[in-house]
């Protein structure tokens, strides 16, 4: 058995280009998709990725004065009035925003350019900035009124993104929203988007923002992280067809006869292919995840348990693709033609990848597609990865893993049935 495995691996290592494509292609695609859709050079420490314009309409001091005037008219004790106006001197809503802008964490992601509205708009259309944060006239006044006196509607901060609205713009929006929520500035956020629905609904990686915390209870996920998993599960499928195809070009017909003549059970050949497929998938995903984490800094796990979960999912998925490799080998041998591996790698992989959410996040697919995707091995694996890395527990991923194992058993039984045993006298 070991000799079969060793032979398969040896053969595989002979074709360096093919091996490189299998192992590195998902990495390349992950980076491309992660960056193209993300637009964020996320993770790199110097990482200034996009500029945003900051437009402050109106005058803070005037607003403060106006507010103090109003406080004076109030039928409350003078002591209280003095306290309020003291507080207002030391705390101004806009300062919260500028403080955040001046923080190191924020500057790692965004470069803030203060400018007037006209300049900002032209910078946006020239794509010099990816978004504008507009502090409207009366912002300080309205915000203070809402915060201190619980009066009025509060104010709105306006985040304007352009036609070319990139992912970083949406992160920026999210950041502002988080600030508002956290500090309860008595303000809402109004989004003015030139174009709708082009921004995937990812959340930014909170670790980039230091102590600013995400508003969701799930851990946020960066596009790089998403595509690391998405491309990983997709390219693993290619390993299956590559192994089967290797068997074909290796002229198994003749070699296989030798194996039968040696008195070895022909099933050895099949198991060799299945196990080497499995190993290769595992290695492929480990390489992908390692490089993605270390070099692209796509995501980080807090502790060993979380990594163990990723390893477990990878292992179960590798087994299931091993069975796919065995099935394709069986069919190829039975049909004595490599057409099935061609069809598989040329079409079926793409369909499975689409259904499973490797191209477009599942949440953005029509429901029946994501239901179908829930039955593909890659879809199941991707779901498990996403759930697990968002901090959902083992209970969440267990059903997917069980489904994957059931899938494996079914596929293995089919491949055993198809496997051409009639050659044995």
């Amino acid at each position, binding site marked *: 058995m070991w000799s079969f495995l060793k032979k398969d691996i*040896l053969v595989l290592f*002979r074709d360096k280009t093919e091996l490189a494509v299998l192992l590195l292609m998902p990495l390349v695609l992950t980076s491309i998709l992660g960056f193209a859709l993300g637009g964020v050079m996320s993770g790199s420490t110097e990482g200034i990725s996009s500029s945003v314009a900051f437009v402050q309409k109106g005058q803070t001091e005037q607003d403060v004065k106006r507010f103090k005037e109003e406080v004076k008219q109030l039928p409350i004790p003078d002591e209280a009035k003095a306290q309020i106006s003291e507080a207002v001197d030391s705390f101004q809503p806009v300062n919260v925003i500028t403080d955040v802008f001046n923080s190191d964490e924020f500057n790692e992601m965004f470069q803030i350019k203060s400018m007037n509205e006209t300049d900002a708009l032209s910078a946006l259309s020239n794509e010099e900035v990816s978004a504008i944060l507009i502090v409207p006239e009366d912002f300080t006044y309205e915000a203070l009124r809402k915060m201190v006196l619980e009066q009025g509607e509060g104010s709105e901060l306006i985040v304007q993104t352009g036609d070319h609205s990139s992912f970083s713009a949406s992160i920026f929006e999210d950041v502002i929203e988080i600030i508002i929520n956290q500090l309860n500035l008595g303000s809402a956020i109004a989004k003015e988007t030139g174009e709708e629905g082009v921004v995937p609904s990812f959340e930014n990686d909170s670790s980039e923002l230091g102590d600013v915390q995400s508003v969701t209870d799930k851990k946020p996920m960066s596009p790089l992280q998403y595509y690391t998993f998405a491309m990983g599960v997709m390219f693993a499928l290619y390993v299956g067809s590559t192994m089967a195809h290797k068997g074909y070009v290796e002229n198994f017909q003749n070699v296989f*006869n030798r194996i039968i003549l040696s008195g070895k059970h022909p099933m050895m050949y099949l198991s060799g292919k299945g196990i080497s497929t499995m190993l290769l998938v595992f290695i492929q995903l480990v390489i992908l995840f390692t490089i993605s984490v270390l070099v692209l800094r796509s995501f980080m796990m807090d502790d060993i348990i979380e990594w163990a979960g990723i390893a477990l999912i990878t292992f179960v998925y590798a087994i299931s693709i091993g069975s796919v490799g065995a099935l394709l080998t069986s069919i190829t041998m039975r049909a004595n033609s490599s057409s099935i591996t061609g069809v598989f790698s040329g079409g079926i992989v793409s369909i499975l990848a689409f259904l499973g959410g490797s191209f477009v996040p599942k949440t953005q697919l029509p429901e029946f597609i994501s239901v179908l995707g829930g039955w593909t091995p890659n879809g199941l694996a991707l779901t498990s990865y996403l759930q697990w890395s968002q901090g959902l527990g083992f209970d969440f991923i267990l059903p997917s893993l069980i489904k994957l194992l059931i899938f494996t058993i079914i596929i293995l039984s089919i491949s055993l049935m198809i496997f051409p045993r009639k050659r044995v006298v």
Partner: protein
Amino acid sequence: MLETVNLKKVFKQNVAADDVNLYLDQGESVGLLGPNGAGKSTTISMISTLLRPTSGDVKWHGKSVIKNPNEIRDVLGVVPQEIALYKELSALENLKFFGKIYGLKGKQLDKKIQEVLEIVGLTERQKDLVKTYSGGMKRRINIAVALLHEPVIIIMDEPTVGIDPQSRNYILEMVRQLKEEKGMTVLYTSHYMEEVERLCDRIYIMDHGKVIATGTKEELTSILSSEETIIVDFDRPYPNLVNKLEKNESILQVTETDNGIKLIVPKGSRQLGTIFNLAEKEEAQITSINVQVPTLEDVFLHLTGRKLRD
């Protein structure tokens, strides 16, 4: 030791092997001669338990191998017609893999590998990938793999097809040595009658799935002992002359060759005069004339009316 009994294989409507009866005795070398599609490979596959016969049986020491194939597999070395090797691996890696699946291990395996490499003369090139080998070298490694487990019988399916004369000589010499020095029993398939003539003690001639003649080379050619072959070369083709020769009843067979004609005539029937006369009448210029004793090729031609290689 090994025999086939009315061995038959039908593929759809195509009868690839039809009631083939042949046997091999310990230490002899037997040739299976026939043109493309004669059914040689089919017969060999059935003997080596890789193909189930439609009917008939293969017997090893009197026992059917169909019910119990492992016994014969152990003693059989099969050299397939196609190169059955991993082209991406080196000769050494191939030998290691196939040696291991035959249950050889460690030092014993290494020793055996070097031994067979020596036999096929590829010790120097053992580390090179098979795909970088010449056609002849691939054939030789293909044979080496079949020798690893020290088989008693070696079955070779056209081991010299499509290679240069030098490699071919090497292989033929190697087979001869295996038989004479190691006492191996050889079943050798070919459509080159020279090879079979040179190597084999006994010969089966197959055509259209049937064994049409069998015996030693002498026995087979003696089928034609009452005939002789006359080869006449001309400066150019003379169709009229061929026509007239064909009409002549004392000439048994006329075939056109590249440079002239080949005639089969009853032995001692003095046809040379007739040929000269006809040639004169047609103003045909004879460039050479040659009277031959029959070859296996002639036997085949005689039996089937066709040449071994078309």
